[in-house]
């Protein structure tokens, strides 16, 4: 009974966090789907999003949810820049090249970030109140973050399926050579996709910063979570990432009721490897 109560209190929180994790993973999986590149600079960009919230709210006093807009624009531009500087030349090279190229971007951002912000923790003192739902307390910031994540996912879906650039992105995902033959400007589309991926990372970081303390290195943990979620939902399937995030959130909410919290990563990464082996296209992907 005690376990059941514990479950009831931790599960809603896990679900809400799951949506935000899903948003971060969506950026990673979008990039993977379009250009078969695993973006190892994902974590530091999440961290930059966190610092974005910190500066916009703490230094400028603007509401962090309005601050999401400049952070998103910044994320998009940064992604386009990273694409042209680091990724474009190695996009057809073996995987090792693109992995190391994005990792070198990771090192550059973390290096500059460490010099500017140091590695001491930051905290955004922002509160949206809380309310009781049965026996559990739900923080307003987390509820809003989850709602914004769903909203952004919806917007991404509409963009990909209803607009011309979105259709181009899907065409390049399917078959780049064929898309080029049909007159799709593939370089611009690849840059845009990379930018969208980093934009989603920056937004999720900005949302996470409203309820967790962070430093320049905290992006790494969310990057690893994004890998797990991406594989759960199927790499290259942005909408699946939201479901994957939800699964991870539920797991994180459930496991502490039965086991010590320190077992959570064991189960997460164990599951990750098993799913890679058994269903590399994700739980919902087509079986090869």
């Amino acid at each position, binding site marked *: 009974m005690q376990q059941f109560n514990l479950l009831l209190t931790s599960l809603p929180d896990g679900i809400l966090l799951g949506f935000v994790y899903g948003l971060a993973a969506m950026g990673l999986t979008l990039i993977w789907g379009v250009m078969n590149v695993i973006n190892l600079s994902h974590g530091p960009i999440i961290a930059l999003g966190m610092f974005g919230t910190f500066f916009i709210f703490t230094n400028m006093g603007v509401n962090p949810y309005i601050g999401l807009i400049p952070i998103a624009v910044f994320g998009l531009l940064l992604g386009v820049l990273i694409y042209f500087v680091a990724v474009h030349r190695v996009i057809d090279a073996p995987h*090792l090249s693109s992995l*190391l*190229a994005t990792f*070198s971007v990771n090192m550059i951002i973390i290096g500059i970030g460490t010099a500017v912000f140091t590695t001491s923790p930051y905290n955004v003192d922002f509160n949206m109140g809380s309310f009781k739902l049965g026996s559990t307390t739900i923080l307003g910031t987390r509820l809003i973050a989850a709602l914004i994540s769903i909203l952004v996912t919806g917007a991404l879906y509409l963009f990909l399926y209803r607009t011309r650039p979105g259709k181009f992105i899907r065409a390049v995902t399917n078959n780049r050579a064929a898309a080029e033959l049909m007159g799709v400007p593939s370089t611009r589309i690849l840059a845009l996709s990379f930018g969208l991926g980093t934009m989603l990372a920056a937004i999720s970081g900005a949302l996470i910063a409203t309820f967790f303390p962070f430093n320049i290195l905290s992006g790494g943990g969310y990057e690893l979570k994004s*890998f797990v979620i991406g594989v759960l939902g199927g790499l290259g399937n942005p909408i699946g990432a939201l479901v994957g995030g939800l699964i991870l959130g539920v797991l994180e909410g459930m496991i502490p009721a039965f086991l010590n919290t320190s077992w959570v990563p*064991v189960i997460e*990464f164990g599951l*990750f*490897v098993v799913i*890679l082996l058994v269903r590399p296209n994700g739980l919902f992907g087509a079986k090869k």
Partner: protein
Amino acid sequence: MKNWRNHLGLLLPLLAVGALAIWPVITDNISNRESAFTILKAIALASSLNILLGYTGYVSFGHIVFYGFGGYVGLYFVNEQGWSIWAGMLVGGISSGVLAFLLGKAILRLRGAYFALATIGVNEAMKALVNNLDIFGGPIGMTLNFSVYKAYGGAAKALGMAFYIMAGLAFAALIISHIVRTSKFGLGLQAIRENEDAAEVMGVVAPDAKTWAYVLSAIVPGMVGVLFFFKNGNVEPHVAFPLHASIELLVMVMLGGQGTVLGPILGAFAYQGMRGYFVTSDFFKDIQLSVSGVLLLLIVLFIPAGAIGWLRQRFPALRRVLA
């Protein structure tokens, strides 16, 4: 020595490691010995990784898991069961090899980036698992009982001895690397790297060959782990399984030239030397990571074959020596 020309490639690597091993003895300087120890450790690890990465073409992002796992197992036997460091290293190397065998049977079926992701997952899962194992001291890790050093004539002597063992391990790693490169087995691995399906058609039993390459690349890191934690005096989960150290190894192999015996040695030299310089310089101290990142990016973008690979392409006459 019939066909001695085939082994010319071993000359420069042996000289390089030999010079590193003798350098602290000649200068009789403890700080030099520590620098040489770090470089030798990097050489042993990078050369081992090269067997999988350079020859077989599989990108292992979590290779450090063998270093951490072997190190933990070996240190456990040295510290808790009173085994000697030799027996500890042996059991550390064997356990890493066995882990690689079992893992290899499962994850080597994955190709390209999926394999790279799986190795990251394995490393993180192992780190989290060790964090929960009370037998290994959980999150606190294990601290070596100081009396362990007594059998080797006190701590100072033991540290000196650790240096020579590390030099031996670096030698072992590069000799394994050379033997694999010049053997028929290694030829099979390189065929897998170029085109796995074609290699299978030509009669290379790819799953077995890959698994054995994985095992070979795991044994020396396991032994290095035991020796390093023995010298350090303690081991903790986040020290034993640092993901960034795995990536540093990849950088070393890339820098020097993947798929060559000399490449990882040169890469280890260059990377550790560069890091040592940046960390101590006033100007680069704070942004040393960024500078390394820029250098890495330039290498990946413009000389993907690494220094040795580039030299081999430019000066074909040197190919025999720069193997």
